[in-house]
Protein backbone atom coordinates (compact mmCIF):
# COMPACT_ATOMS: atom_id res chain seq x y z
CA UNK A 1 0.00 0.00 0.00
CA UNK A 2 1.39 3.36 -0.98
CA UNK A 3 2.63 5.58 1.89
CA UNK A 4 2.59 2.47 4.10
CA UNK A 5 4.86 -0.28 2.76
CA UNK A 6 7.77 2.10 2.22
CA UNK A 7 7.86 2.74 5.96
CA UNK A 8 7.79 -0.92 6.94
CA UNK A 9 11.09 -2.15 5.58
CA UNK A 10 13.05 -4.33 7.89
CA UNK A 11 16.40 -2.78 7.00
CA UNK A 12 15.09 0.63 8.13
CA UNK A 13 13.90 -0.63 11.48
CA UNK A 14 17.17 -2.43 12.08
CA UNK A 15 19.33 0.60 11.40
CA UNK A 16 17.08 2.87 13.40
CA UNK A 17 17.19 0.48 16.34
CA UNK A 18 21.00 0.59 16.19
CA UNK A 19 21.07 4.37 16.04
CA UNK A 20 18.71 4.54 19.02
CA UNK A 21 20.90 2.14 21.01
CA UNK A 22 23.91 4.34 20.29
CA UNK A 23 22.13 7.58 21.12
CA UNK A 24 20.56 6.39 24.37
CA UNK A 25 23.05 7.47 26.99
CA UNK A 26 20.64 7.72 29.97
CA UNK A 27 17.09 6.68 30.91
CA UNK A 28 14.25 8.12 28.87
CA UNK A 29 10.47 7.92 29.23
CA UNK A 30 8.31 9.04 26.36
CA UNK A 31 4.55 9.05 26.22
CA UNK A 32 2.42 8.35 23.20
CA UNK A 33 -0.98 9.95 23.56
CA UNK A 34 -2.69 8.60 20.49
CA UNK A 35 -4.52 5.29 20.66
CA UNK A 36 -3.44 4.59 17.10
CA UNK A 37 0.18 4.87 18.25
CA UNK A 38 -0.41 2.59 21.25
CA UNK A 39 -1.83 -0.04 19.00
CA UNK A 40 0.90 0.33 16.33
CA UNK A 41 3.70 0.27 18.92
CA UNK A 42 2.53 -3.06 20.29
CA UNK A 43 1.54 -4.58 16.96
CA UNK A 44 4.97 -3.89 15.46
CA UNK A 45 6.78 -4.95 18.64
CA UNK A 46 8.53 -1.58 18.95
CA UNK A 47 9.38 -1.99 22.68
CA UNK A 48 11.42 -5.10 21.86
CA UNK A 49 13.54 -3.02 19.45
CA UNK A 50 14.37 -0.41 22.07
CA UNK A 51 17.08 -0.58 24.71
CA UNK A 52 15.84 -1.01 28.29
CA UNK A 53 16.70 2.59 29.01
CA UNK A 54 14.00 3.80 26.64
CA UNK A 55 10.51 3.35 28.04
CA UNK A 56 7.27 4.10 26.24
CA UNK A 57 4.11 4.91 28.19
CA UNK A 58 0.55 5.14 26.91
CA UNK A 59 -1.44 8.28 27.58
CA UNK A 60 -5.09 9.25 27.32
CA UNK A 61 -5.42 9.22 23.54
CA UNK A 62 -7.96 6.52 22.94
CA UNK A 63 -11.29 8.33 22.62
CA UNK A 64 -13.20 5.21 23.55
CA UNK A 65 -11.18 4.74 26.74
CA UNK A 66 -11.73 8.27 28.00
CA UNK A 67 -15.46 8.35 27.27
CA UNK A 68 -17.29 8.43 30.60
CA UNK A 69 -19.70 5.70 31.69
CA UNK A 70 -22.28 8.47 32.00
CA UNK A 71 -22.04 9.14 28.27
CA UNK A 72 -22.55 5.45 27.47
CA UNK A 73 -25.58 5.41 29.81
CA UNK A 74 -26.99 8.39 27.97
CA UNK A 75 -26.60 6.73 24.56
CA UNK A 76 -28.41 3.66 25.83
CA UNK A 77 -31.20 5.74 27.40
CA UNK A 78 -31.68 7.62 24.12
CA UNK A 79 -31.72 4.41 22.11
CA UNK A 80 -34.39 3.05 24.43
CA UNK A 81 -36.81 5.88 23.54
CA UNK A 82 -39.53 4.68 21.21
CA UNK A 83 -38.76 6.72 18.09
CA UNK A 84 -34.98 7.13 18.45
CA UNK A 85 -32.10 5.29 16.80
CA UNK A 86 -28.57 5.89 18.03
CA UNK A 87 -25.84 5.65 15.38
CA UNK A 88 -22.41 4.99 16.86
CA UNK A 89 -18.90 3.86 15.94
CA UNK A 90 -18.37 0.12 16.38
CA UNK A 91 -15.59 0.57 18.95
CA UNK A 92 -18.14 1.84 21.46
CA UNK A 93 -20.43 -1.17 21.35
CA UNK A 94 -18.76 -3.13 24.12
CA UNK A 95 -17.73 -0.30 26.41
CA UNK A 96 -19.22 -0.85 29.87
CA UNK A 97 -21.73 1.75 31.02
CA UNK A 98 -23.04 1.82 34.58
CA UNK A 99 -25.30 -1.21 34.08
CA UNK A 100 -24.94 -2.24 30.45
CA UNK A 101 -22.76 -1.87 27.39
CA UNK A 102 -24.44 -0.71 24.16
CA UNK A 103 -24.14 -4.28 22.79
CA UNK A 104 -25.95 -5.67 25.83
CA UNK A 105 -28.57 -2.92 25.50
CA UNK A 106 -29.25 -3.97 21.90
CA UNK A 107 -30.01 -7.45 23.17
CA UNK A 108 -32.57 -5.85 25.49
CA UNK A 109 -34.26 -4.01 22.65
CA UNK A 110 -32.45 -0.63 22.47
CA UNK A 111 -31.95 0.64 18.92
CA UNK A 112 -28.23 1.24 18.49
CA UNK A 113 -26.65 0.80 15.08
CA UNK A 114 -23.01 0.86 14.03
CA UNK A 115 -21.96 3.40 11.40
CA UNK A 116 -18.59 4.18 9.83
CA UNK A 117 -19.10 7.93 9.64
CA UNK A 118 -21.30 10.84 10.70
CA UNK A 119 -22.40 11.05 7.10
CA UNK A 120 -23.87 7.56 7.26
CA UNK A 121 -25.95 8.62 10.28
CA UNK A 122 -27.29 11.62 8.36
CA UNK A 123 -28.13 9.30 5.50
CA UNK A 124 -30.21 7.20 7.91
CA UNK A 125 -32.11 10.33 8.93
CA UNK A 126 -32.78 11.18 5.29
CA UNK A 127 -34.07 7.76 4.38
CA UNK A 128 -36.45 7.48 7.34
CA UNK A 129 -37.76 10.96 8.17
CA UNK A 130 -40.10 9.62 10.87
CA UNK A 131 -37.26 8.24 12.99
CA UNK A 132 -35.02 10.45 15.04
CA UNK A 133 -31.36 9.64 14.53
CA UNK A 134 -28.82 10.52 17.21
CA UNK A 135 -25.20 10.38 16.06
CA UNK A 136 -22.72 9.61 18.82
CA UNK A 137 -19.93 12.14 18.23
CA UNK A 138 -16.87 10.58 19.82
CA UNK A 139 -13.25 11.30 19.00
CA UNK A 140 -10.63 14.03 19.06
CA UNK A 141 -9.78 16.84 16.63
CA UNK A 142 -9.45 14.24 13.88
CA UNK A 143 -13.07 13.07 14.05
CA UNK A 144 -14.87 16.22 15.18
CA UNK A 145 -14.58 18.14 11.85
CA UNK A 146 -16.49 15.32 10.14
CA UNK A 147 -19.28 15.72 12.68
CA UNK A 148 -19.19 19.49 12.10
CA UNK A 149 -19.47 19.12 8.31
CA UNK A 150 -22.42 16.77 8.79
CA UNK A 151 -24.24 19.10 11.19
CA UNK A 152 -23.82 21.93 8.68
CA UNK A 153 -25.26 19.71 5.97
CA UNK A 154 -28.23 18.77 8.15
CA UNK A 155 -28.72 22.45 8.85
CA UNK A 156 -28.63 23.49 5.22
CA UNK A 157 -31.19 20.89 4.24
CA UNK A 158 -33.43 21.81 7.18
CA UNK A 159 -33.35 18.34 8.71
CA UNK A 160 -35.34 18.02 11.92
CA UNK A 161 -34.73 14.36 12.76
CA UNK A 162 -30.93 14.37 13.09
CA UNK A 163 -29.08 15.01 16.36
CA UNK A 164 -25.60 14.73 17.79
CA UNK A 165 -24.60 13.69 21.30
CA UNK A 166 -21.14 15.17 21.44
CA UNK A 167 -18.35 13.62 23.48
CA UNK A 168 -15.75 15.14 21.18
CA UNK A 169 -12.60 16.11 23.00
CA UNK A 170 -9.45 18.14 22.48
CA UNK A 171 -6.03 16.59 22.90
CA UNK A 172 -3.69 19.44 23.91
CA UNK A 173 -5.61 20.33 27.12
CA UNK A 174 -5.46 16.67 28.20
CA UNK A 175 -1.71 16.55 27.61
CA UNK A 176 -1.33 19.65 29.73
CA UNK A 177 -3.58 18.21 32.46
CA UNK A 178 -1.37 15.14 32.69
CA UNK A 179 1.75 17.24 33.03
CA UNK A 180 0.14 19.40 35.71
CA UNK A 181 -0.91 16.23 37.46
CA UNK A 182 2.73 15.30 37.86
CA UNK A 183 3.25 12.54 35.31
CA UNK A 184 7.02 12.53 34.76
CA UNK A 185 8.16 12.03 31.20
CA UNK A 186 10.92 13.33 28.95
CA UNK A 187 8.77 13.97 25.92
CA UNK A 188 5.72 13.21 23.86
CA UNK A 189 5.23 11.14 20.75
CA UNK A 190 2.63 13.65 19.55
CA UNK A 191 -0.58 12.39 17.92
CA UNK A 192 -0.07 12.43 14.16
CA UNK A 193 -3.67 12.48 13.05
CA UNK A 194 -4.79 15.08 15.58
CA UNK A 195 -1.90 17.19 14.27
CA UNK A 196 -3.11 16.78 10.68
CA UNK A 197 -6.02 18.98 11.75
CA UNK A 198 -4.49 21.21 14.45
CA UNK A 199 -1.04 21.56 12.93
CA UNK A 200 2.18 20.75 14.78
CA UNK A 201 2.10 24.23 16.32
CA UNK A 202 -0.71 23.13 18.66
CA UNK A 203 1.97 21.46 20.78
CA UNK A 204 4.37 24.42 20.99
CA UNK A 205 3.28 25.12 24.56
CA UNK A 206 4.85 21.84 25.71
CA UNK A 207 8.52 22.67 25.05
CA UNK A 208 7.85 26.32 25.83
CA UNK A 209 6.09 25.90 29.18
CA UNK A 210 7.21 22.46 30.29
CA UNK A 211 10.59 22.09 28.60
CA UNK A 212 9.70 18.70 27.12
CA UNK A 213 10.63 17.20 23.78
CA UNK A 214 7.88 16.69 21.17
CA UNK A 215 7.84 14.85 17.85
CA UNK A 216 4.69 14.62 15.73
CA UNK A 217 4.76 11.04 14.54
CA UNK A 218 3.36 8.74 11.86
CA UNK A 219 2.06 5.23 12.38
CA UNK A 220 4.48 2.84 10.67
CA UNK A 221 7.46 1.16 12.33
CA UNK A 222 10.01 3.48 10.72
CA UNK A 223 7.97 6.50 11.80
CA UNK A 224 7.80 5.38 15.40
CA UNK A 225 11.50 4.50 15.69
CA UNK A 226 12.60 7.62 13.86
CA UNK A 227 10.58 9.70 16.30
CA UNK A 228 12.07 7.98 19.32
CA UNK A 229 15.51 8.79 17.90
CA UNK A 230 14.53 12.42 17.34
CA UNK A 231 13.17 12.65 20.89
CA UNK A 232 16.37 11.18 22.35
CA UNK A 233 18.45 13.68 20.40
CA UNK A 234 16.31 16.57 21.65
CA UNK A 235 16.75 15.39 25.23
CA UNK A 236 20.50 14.82 24.79
CA UNK A 237 21.07 18.28 23.40
CA UNK A 238 18.70 19.89 25.94
CA UNK A 239 16.87 21.60 23.10
CA UNK A 240 13.21 20.72 23.42
CA UNK A 241 11.05 21.75 20.49
CA UNK A 242 8.21 20.45 18.32
CA UNK A 243 9.59 18.50 15.37
CA UNK A 244 7.46 16.78 12.76
CA UNK A 245 8.47 13.36 11.58
CA UNK A 246 5.07 12.81 9.90
CA UNK A 247 5.54 15.61 7.39
CA UNK A 248 3.82 13.69 4.60
CA UNK A 249 0.53 14.52 6.31
CA UNK A 250 1.20 17.22 8.91
CA UNK A 251 2.06 20.89 8.47
CA UNK A 252 2.84 23.57 11.05
CA UNK A 253 -0.54 25.23 10.68
CA UNK A 254 -2.72 22.15 10.06
CA UNK A 255 -5.82 21.77 7.93
CA UNK A 256 -7.43 25.19 8.06
CA UNK A 257 -10.60 24.15 6.28
CA UNK A 258 -11.19 21.49 8.89
CA UNK A 259 -10.43 24.00 11.65
CA UNK A 260 -12.95 26.41 10.15
CA UNK A 261 -15.68 23.74 10.18
CA UNK A 262 -14.81 22.93 13.77
CA UNK A 263 -15.05 26.48 15.03
CA UNK A 264 -18.18 27.19 13.03
CA UNK A 265 -20.10 24.38 14.71
CA UNK A 266 -18.42 23.71 18.05
CA UNK A 267 -17.12 25.66 21.03
CA UNK A 268 -14.84 24.40 23.81
CA UNK A 269 -16.45 23.36 27.09
CA UNK A 270 -15.41 21.70 30.35
CA UNK A 271 -15.80 17.93 30.33
CA UNK A 272 -15.26 14.80 32.31
CA UNK A 273 -12.67 12.27 31.07
CA UNK A 274 -12.89 8.70 32.24
CA UNK A 275 -9.90 8.24 34.48
CA UNK A 276 -8.63 11.82 34.30
CA UNK A 277 -11.58 13.67 35.78
CA UNK A 278 -12.69 17.14 34.87
CA UNK A 279 -10.51 19.08 32.40
CA UNK A 280 -11.33 22.71 31.64
CA UNK A 281 -12.13 23.59 28.02
CA UNK A 282 -11.18 20.15 26.76
CA UNK A 283 -14.53 19.17 25.23
CA UNK A 284 -16.55 20.39 22.28
CA UNK A 285 -20.24 21.30 22.40
CA UNK A 286 -22.51 22.64 19.67
CA UNK A 287 -22.67 26.42 19.46
CA UNK A 288 -26.03 28.15 20.04
CA UNK A 289 -26.62 28.48 16.34
CA UNK A 290 -26.63 24.66 16.04
CA UNK A 291 -28.10 23.87 19.47
CA UNK A 292 -31.26 22.40 17.91
CA UNK A 293 -29.13 19.43 16.81
CA UNK A 294 -27.96 18.78 20.37
CA UNK A 295 -29.43 15.46 21.53
CA UNK A 296 -28.57 16.36 25.12
CA UNK A 297 -30.94 19.34 24.96
CA UNK A 298 -33.60 17.78 22.71
CA UNK A 299 -34.41 14.68 24.75
CA UNK A 300 -35.01 14.09 28.43
CA UNK A 301 -33.77 10.76 29.71
CA UNK A 302 -33.24 9.27 33.13
CA UNK A 303 -29.91 7.68 33.89
CA UNK A 304 -28.90 4.92 36.26
CA UNK A 305 -27.03 6.05 39.35
CA UNK A 306 -23.30 5.59 39.17
CA UNK A 307 -22.81 2.88 41.71
CA UNK A 308 -20.30 0.78 39.91
CA UNK A 309 -17.27 0.19 42.07
CA UNK A 310 -14.43 -1.67 40.42
CA UNK A 311 -10.79 -2.43 40.96
CA UNK A 312 -10.13 -1.24 37.40
CA UNK A 313 -7.17 1.17 37.34
CA UNK A 314 -7.84 2.54 33.83
CA UNK A 315 -7.46 6.06 35.20
CA UNK A 316 -3.90 5.52 36.32
CA UNK A 317 -3.09 3.74 33.08
CA UNK A 318 -4.43 6.65 31.04
CA UNK A 319 -2.19 9.02 32.98
CA UNK A 320 0.83 6.81 32.46
CA UNK A 321 1.23 6.23 36.20
CA UNK A 322 0.86 2.44 35.95
CA UNK A 323 0.95 -0.21 33.23
CA UNK A 324 -1.77 -2.81 32.53
CA UNK A 325 -0.05 -5.83 34.17
CA UNK A 326 -0.08 -3.86 37.43
CA UNK A 327 -3.88 -4.09 37.48
CA UNK A 328 -5.17 -6.91 39.71
CA UNK A 329 -7.89 -7.76 37.20
CA UNK A 330 -5.66 -7.77 34.10
CA UNK A 331 -5.91 -11.04 32.14
CA UNK A 332 -7.84 -12.70 34.96
CA UNK A 333 -11.23 -11.04 35.42
CA UNK A 334 -10.58 -8.57 32.62
CA UNK A 335 -9.95 -9.80 29.07
CA UNK A 336 -11.01 -8.55 25.63
CA UNK A 337 -13.92 -11.04 25.73
CA UNK A 338 -15.03 -9.91 29.20
CA UNK A 339 -13.75 -6.37 29.58
CA UNK A 340 -14.02 -4.70 32.94
CA UNK A 341 -12.77 -1.31 31.78
CA UNK A 342 -12.80 0.65 28.54
CA UNK A 343 -9.02 0.28 28.07
CA UNK A 344 -9.55 -3.44 27.50
CA UNK A 345 -12.40 -2.95 25.02
CA UNK A 346 -10.91 -0.67 22.47
CA UNK A 347 -8.41 -1.87 19.88
CA UNK A 348 -6.50 1.27 20.78
CA UNK A 349 -6.65 0.81 24.53
CA UNK A 350 -3.44 0.12 26.40
CA UNK A 351 -4.82 -2.94 28.22
CA UNK A 352 -6.16 -4.43 25.00
CA UNK A 353 -2.85 -3.90 23.17
CA UNK A 354 -0.83 -5.40 26.03
CA UNK A 355 -3.14 -8.36 26.21
CA UNK A 356 -3.02 -9.04 22.49
CA UNK A 357 0.65 -8.48 21.78
CA UNK A 358 2.64 -8.71 24.99
CA UNK A 359 0.78 -11.13 27.19
CA UNK A 360 3.48 -13.79 26.90
CA UNK A 361 6.22 -11.59 28.32
Amino acid sequence: MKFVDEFRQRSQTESLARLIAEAATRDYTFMEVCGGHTSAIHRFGIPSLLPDRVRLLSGPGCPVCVTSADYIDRLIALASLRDVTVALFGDLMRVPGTLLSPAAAVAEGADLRVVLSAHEALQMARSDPRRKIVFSGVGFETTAPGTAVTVMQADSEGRDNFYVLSAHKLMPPAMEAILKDGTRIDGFICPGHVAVITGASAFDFIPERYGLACVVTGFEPADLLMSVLMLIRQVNSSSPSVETEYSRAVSREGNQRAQAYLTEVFEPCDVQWRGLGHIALSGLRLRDRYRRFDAGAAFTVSLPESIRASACICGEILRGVRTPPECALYASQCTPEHPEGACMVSEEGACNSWFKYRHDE
Partner: protein
Amino acid sequence: MCLSLPARIISIEGDMGQVSVGGVIFQAGLQMVEGVRVGDYVLLHAGFAIEKMKEEEAMETLRLLKEMEDAINGSDGDEVC
Protein backbone atom coordinates in the same frame (compact mmCIF):
# COMPACT_ATOMS: atom_id res chain seq x y z
CA MET B 1 -11.50 4.59 15.42
CA CYS B 2 -8.39 6.74 15.41
CA LEU B 3 -7.18 4.77 12.47
CA SER B 4 -6.56 6.93 9.42
CA LEU B 5 -5.30 5.32 6.26
CA PRO B 6 -3.87 6.57 2.97
CA ALA B 7 -6.59 6.15 0.36
CA ARG B 8 -6.54 6.75 -3.40
CA ILE B 9 -9.40 8.72 -4.87
CA ILE B 10 -11.06 6.75 -7.65
CA SER B 11 -14.08 8.93 -8.38
CA ILE B 12 -15.52 12.27 -7.31
CA GLU B 13 -19.12 13.42 -7.30
CA GLY B 14 -19.71 16.85 -5.76
CA ASP B 15 -18.13 16.81 -2.32
CA MET B 16 -18.23 13.03 -1.98
CA GLY B 17 -15.72 10.61 -3.42
CA GLN B 18 -15.02 6.92 -3.68
CA VAL B 19 -11.63 6.00 -2.35
CA SER B 20 -9.63 2.80 -2.33
CA VAL B 21 -7.64 1.63 0.68
CA GLY B 22 -5.49 -1.16 -0.67
CA GLY B 23 -8.34 -2.29 -2.94
CA VAL B 24 -11.21 -1.89 -0.47
CA ILE B 25 -13.62 0.85 -1.53
CA PHE B 26 -15.03 3.44 0.87
CA GLN B 27 -17.14 6.58 0.60
CA ALA B 28 -15.33 9.72 1.68
CA GLY B 29 -16.46 13.27 2.35
CA LEU B 30 -14.08 15.60 0.51
CA GLN B 31 -15.16 18.86 2.14
CA MET B 32 -11.91 19.27 4.09
CA VAL B 33 -9.50 18.82 1.19
CA GLU B 34 -9.16 21.46 -1.45
CA GLY B 35 -8.70 20.80 -5.15
CA VAL B 36 -8.23 17.02 -4.98
CA ARG B 37 -8.39 14.95 -8.16
CA VAL B 38 -8.89 11.34 -9.10
CA GLY B 39 -5.61 9.52 -8.43
CA ASP B 40 -4.63 11.71 -5.49
CA TYR B 41 -3.89 10.10 -2.15
CA VAL B 42 -5.74 11.38 0.90
CA LEU B 43 -5.79 10.38 4.54
CA LEU B 44 -9.16 8.74 5.26
CA HIS B 45 -10.57 9.09 8.75
CA ALA B 46 -14.09 8.07 9.86
CA GLY B 47 -15.53 8.61 6.40
CA PHE B 48 -13.76 11.89 5.60
CA ALA B 49 -10.62 12.76 3.71
CA ILE B 50 -8.80 14.84 6.32
CA GLU B 51 -5.70 15.78 4.32
CA LYS B 52 -3.96 15.29 1.03
CA MET B 53 -0.84 13.12 1.32
CA LYS B 54 2.27 15.02 0.34
CA GLU B 55 4.29 12.87 -2.00
CA GLU B 56 7.39 15.09 -1.88
CA GLU B 57 7.48 15.08 1.90
CA ALA B 58 7.10 11.30 1.95
CA MET B 59 10.06 10.99 -0.44
CA GLU B 60 12.08 13.34 1.72
CA THR B 61 11.48 11.28 4.86
CA LEU B 62 12.37 8.11 2.96
CA ARG B 63 15.54 9.74 1.66
CA LEU B 64 16.52 10.63 5.21
CA LEU B 65 15.87 7.09 6.36
CA LYS B 66 17.94 5.74 3.50
CA GLU B 67 20.81 8.05 4.38
CA MET B 68 20.80 6.81 7.95
CA GLU B 69 20.70 3.23 6.77
CA ASP B 70 23.61 3.75 4.39
CA ALA B 71 25.62 5.55 7.02
CA ILE B 72 25.22 2.77 9.52
CA ASN B 73 25.81 -0.03 7.04
CA GLY B 74 28.57 1.64 5.07
CA SER B 75 30.65 2.75 8.01
CA ASP B 76 30.43 -0.07 10.50
CA GLY B 77 31.93 1.03 13.73
CA ASP B 78 32.59 4.56 12.54
CA GLU B 79 30.80 7.61 13.74
CA VAL B 80 27.44 7.85 12.05
CA CYS B 81 25.90 11.01 13.31
